[in-house]
């Protein structure tokens, strides 16, 4: 493999070689949030779930919202990495690793939310020992395990050549990188095997990812509750997940572009393409939401209408309309014309979508529980500092995991950028030539 060293490549290795003051400040800030979360959970663990705002009938609140939200964000990696890789989109090269890391880290946080939500976390082994596959929670456990393993494999395999570069170039952590590099030398046999393995994983990871968020939605749609028992939930949640995943990826890209100076690699064109994808997902999300609510409204079942009006004009109206603003109006306003100030517009839209999609999960879960079918005393859910702390701690922990990853491995795939330069350009040219009509035979 020719060793065309990129002029900017040192930027990619810099975070691993040196640690600046900014890193420690970042860790300190994140630690504050994480400590808040840890304290909140410690209080909950010893006193019971009563320290939250949960009650009857609203037995699920922030924690389950966070669970769905974080698992949703994990779809960032799959879409960008696997689908773009399979469709041979060349612009994916600096983005794939960031996306895959999001997926791996956020799945831990997401699965952790369910453990935090348990009344008896000391009995979590019961799920392993006595699990019932008729329960959607077991479908969750299985598919999230499969997705976690697939994502970790799919993150690790393309990292191997980069780890080999670290092994050869860096002086520190020699043993660590040598072991993980699996003896990579860049030989033909190794390259063929790795490319084949990555291709297999790329194909495999897509249906697993779709199953993950479908199965998360089934936790709600398999019950008989008004506005939960809906057939649209599977595709709705998957679309929402991809939507929030792209937004999270864009934010991560912009953050690390700034702090590590990755401007040569993450150019406005990448944000433009991602912004266009975000726009498409916003429109798709809106279509699903519209279908869902129109169907409920037109059918006018009394129990469903109670929940419907609670969201539209009742106690939940601020959250519902904030959701529409953040998921549809702001993204549309920002992303329709991406000519100038691309990065700024895309950042605004993404931050809005992250907030909006969190609200969307909240709006799906809590209003339905708040309005039971029978004349049960209704309740208003008021989250406490414990739930806010747990949420802040979860975001903080995710950010910390991500930050720590960038200290050990390059956040942009060095060998894939090199491959793009050496091989990609020719491949694309050949592909374009194959689309054009064949040259006519010369007439004699």
């Amino acid at each position, binding site marked *: 493999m020719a060793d065309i060293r990129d002029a900017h490549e040192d930027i990619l290795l810099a975070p691993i070689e040196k640690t600046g003051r900014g890193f420690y400040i970042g860790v300190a800030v994140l630690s504050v949030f994480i400590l808040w979360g840890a304290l909140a959970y410690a209080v909950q663990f010893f006193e019971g779930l009563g320290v939250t705002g949960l009650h009857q009938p609203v037995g699920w609140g922030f924690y389950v919202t966070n669970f769905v939200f974080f698992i949703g964000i994990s779809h960032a990696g799959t879409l960008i990495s696997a689908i773009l890789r399979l469709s041979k989109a060349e612009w994916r090269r600096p983005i794939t690793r960031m996306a895959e890391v999001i997926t791996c880290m956020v799945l831990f946080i997401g699965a952790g939310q369910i453990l935090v939500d348990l009344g008896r976390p000391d009995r979590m082994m019961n799920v392993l020992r006595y699990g019932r596959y*008729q329960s959607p929670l077991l479908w969750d456990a299985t598919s999230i395990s499969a997705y976690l393993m697939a994502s970790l494999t799919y993150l690790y395999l393309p990292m191997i050549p980069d780890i080999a570069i670290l092994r050869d170039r860096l002086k520190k952590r020699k043993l660590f990188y*040598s072991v993980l590099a699996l003896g990579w030398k860049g030989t033909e046999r190794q390259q063929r095997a790795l490319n084949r393995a990555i291709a297999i994983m790329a194909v495999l990871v897509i249906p697993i990812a779709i199953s993950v968020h479908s199965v998360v939605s089934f936790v709600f749609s398999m019950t008989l509750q008004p506005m939960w028992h809906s057939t649209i939930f599977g595709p709705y949640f998957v679309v929402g997940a991809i939507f929030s995943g792209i937004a999270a990826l864009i934010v991560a890209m912009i953050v690390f572009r700034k702090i590590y100076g990755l401007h040569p690699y993450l150019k406005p064109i990448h944000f433009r393409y991602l912004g266009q994808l975000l726009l498409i997902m916003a429109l798709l999300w809106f279509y699903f939401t519209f279908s869902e609510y129109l169907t409920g409204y037109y059918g006018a079942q009394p129990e469903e209408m109670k929940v419907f009006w609670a969201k539209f004009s009742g106690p939940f109206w601020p959250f519902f309309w904030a959701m529409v603003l953040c998921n549809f109006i702001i993204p549309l306003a920002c992303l329709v014309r991406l000519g100038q100030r691309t990065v700024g517009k895309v950042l605004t839209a993404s931050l809005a979508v992250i907030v909006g999609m969190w609200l969307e999960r909240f709006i799906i879960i809590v209003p339905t529980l708040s309005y039971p079918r029978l004349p049960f005393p209704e309740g208003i859910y008021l989250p406490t500092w414990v739930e806010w702390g747990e949420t802040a701690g979860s975001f903080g922990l995710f950010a910390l995991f991500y930050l720590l990853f960038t200290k050990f491995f390059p956040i942009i795939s060095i060998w894939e950028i090199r491959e793009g330069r050496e091989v990609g350009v020719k491949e694309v040219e050949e592909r374009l030539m194959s689309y054009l009509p064949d040259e006519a035979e010369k007439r004699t």
Partner: protein
Amino acid sequence: MKLPDSDFDRLVRKLQWVWVGGAMLLIGGVVTWIVHLILTALWLEDVPSASIGIALVAIPIFLVFSGVVIYVFWNVTLRGEDR
């Protein structure tokens, strides 16, 4: 021409076996767990169809993972030096 292995290289190779072995244990553990859940459902006469249905899809997927891991380990690490 392959140079003789240094102590460092031998240690690295041992740890690589541990690393990949650990991954296989994890995958094997999940497959075992799924089978255990099927057996539990049958023993308790609960709804074995759910367990068997899911196992038919899930277990092959985990087996493919282990296949990919073995394939990569074989071709990259163990036989990587060959052309």
